[in-house]
């Protein structure tokens, strides 16, 4: 009996050990490539080699002295901002309808809003490119921004809807009972309480506007080429550590985005 228990215990520990080992491996797999890139971005040599030698900020200087890259970053930044503003303007009212509309209407509505996000990005990109061409609208920064907004609207709607659904409906009733009109109640009570969710949604919509490739590649303007397009071209052409520095900049932006998230809804709130 005891030996059998010991054997079971041993198997159990082994199994759990293997599972935890895989988990640690996965986590390492997630972080190590970025660590390597950041290390290489400080390498003094002009070619990629490991382990890196020395320390220099030269490659970062090169990134910010590269007129094409700086222009592309500026373009992508603008797209990110436009996408975010559009998603707030269209997404927050839509979330209100999704959370409070009559049951049948709101189910259909959420499917309708989520669908463009479920369609593969390149399919949406190609479809918009074709349609634009039919009516004489060529690829441009605006076409890119509008298509991306439609693509990621679902993210904003979902984040804000789930926050709305967890808000006590008595809060708005209390505001009304205290004399607020529906608009006043929305502005003074509901909107402030939605801000964390709107902020979290904005982080994701901005990142999508800034980084998206699948939709962008078919819709971007040829004169103001956004960062992912330039980045794709550069990565294919050169392996200079400058690309690593460019990656370092992007990783820094991701960290900033994550700090914003953890301050707004908390990292474990991202999933809602």
């Amino acid at each position, binding site marked *: 009996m005891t030996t059998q228990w010991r054997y079971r215990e041993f198997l159990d520990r082994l199994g759990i050990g293997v599972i935890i080992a895989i988990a640690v491996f996965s*986590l390492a797999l997630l972080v190590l490539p*970025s660590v390597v890139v950041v290390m290489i971005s400080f390498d003094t040599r002009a070619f990629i080699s490991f382990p890196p030698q020395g320390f220099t900020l030269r490659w970062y200087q090169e990134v910010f002295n590269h007129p094409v890259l700086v222009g592309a970053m500026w373009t992508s930044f603008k797209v990110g901002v436009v996408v975010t503003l559009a998603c707030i303007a269209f997404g927050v009212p839509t979330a209100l309808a999704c959370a409070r509309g*009559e049951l049948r*209407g709101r189910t259909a509505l959420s499917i309708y809003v989520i669908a463009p996000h479920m369609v*593969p990005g390149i399919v949406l990109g190609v479809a918009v490119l074709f349609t634009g061409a*039919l009516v004489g609208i060529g690829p441009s920064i605006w076409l890119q921004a509008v298509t991306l*907004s439609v693509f990621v609207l679902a993210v904003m709607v979902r984040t804000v809807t789930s926050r709305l659904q967890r808000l006590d409906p008595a809060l708005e009733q209390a505001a009304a009972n205290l004399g607020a009109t529906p608009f006043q109640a929305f502005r003074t009570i509901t909107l402030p309480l939605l801000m964390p969710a709107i902020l979290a949604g904005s982080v994701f919509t901005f990142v999508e506007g800034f980084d998206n490739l699948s939709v962008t590649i078919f819709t971007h303007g040829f004169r103001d080429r956004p960062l992912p397009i330039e980045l794709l071209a550069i990565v294919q052409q050169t392996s200079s550590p400058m690309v690593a520095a460019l990656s370092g900049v992007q990783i820094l932006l*991701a960290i900033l985005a994550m700090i914003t998230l953890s301050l707004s809804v908390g*990292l474990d709130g991202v999933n809602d």
Partner: protein
Amino acid sequence: MTPTALHGPFIDRLLSGRGIWPAVPAIIVLAIVAVIPFMVLLSLGFSDVVSSRGVIISQEFSLRHLKAALSDSLYWTTFRRSIGLAVTTTLLCMLLGFPVAYLYLIGGKWTRRIILVLTIAPILTSGIVRTYAWIVILGGRGVINTTLMQLGLIDQPVRIINTHWAVLIGMVQIHLPIMILPLIAVMTRHDTRLDEASANLGATRLGTLRHVILPLATPGLGTGAALVFTLSYTTFVVPQLLGGGNYLNAATMVFEQVVYALEWNKGAVTAVILMATCLIGLIGIAALTNLATRWTRAGRS
């Protein structure tokens, strides 16, 4: 603070109603930028258009482009490759992702925080940047080759990049966070008293994992699998950068047909096939998730 004309009774009625019409602007925009384009895509793929100088002269329903695509062996190899790659990626992500979710479940505050950071940070980082990291690691003069040469294990750099394996490694690493996130959502809601009850009833930790945690996490696995499948099936960053110039998957094929060859009808058909197969894949995953949920819940050891 009296209501002004701008937000007078109209906006008040809008906000207090239970109709869906605050969503009307979004509905219209989505119709113009998603619904109509999708119909245009279908019509381009399934019609014969005679046009002169951009003016459509005649257009009629036709399966010509679809037939041409289906009789082209390149289509078959490309789609077979894409689907195979997506399925393998999905399975590997499940295998690597579930243990992370388990660690999240049993871990303390800091373990959980670290897992969240390591999972969310990549999602906020550009896919190109993350793929570039693999060029640095797997390249001819990359981390692996230089290390192996320095150790004297090889004389010449081994070719890793521009192979199917490089694509697979990149695919799995890029999509792993997308698998972990929905699993963590399940684990956050998981009631650990169930695990305690299970242990108290004599189950080992593996037994609890198998009979309590896994059945409850299966829907999360399904959600993650659906997301990873869609994204890995339709991505072209990783194949483009890690597969070399001639590694063609369905997404790169659409891109080449539309942007380089300017064969729009062909591109439209490919895009429609891509979407249709993706949908079939998603339905398959949903069915499998259902089955797996029933199987894990009914199962005895």
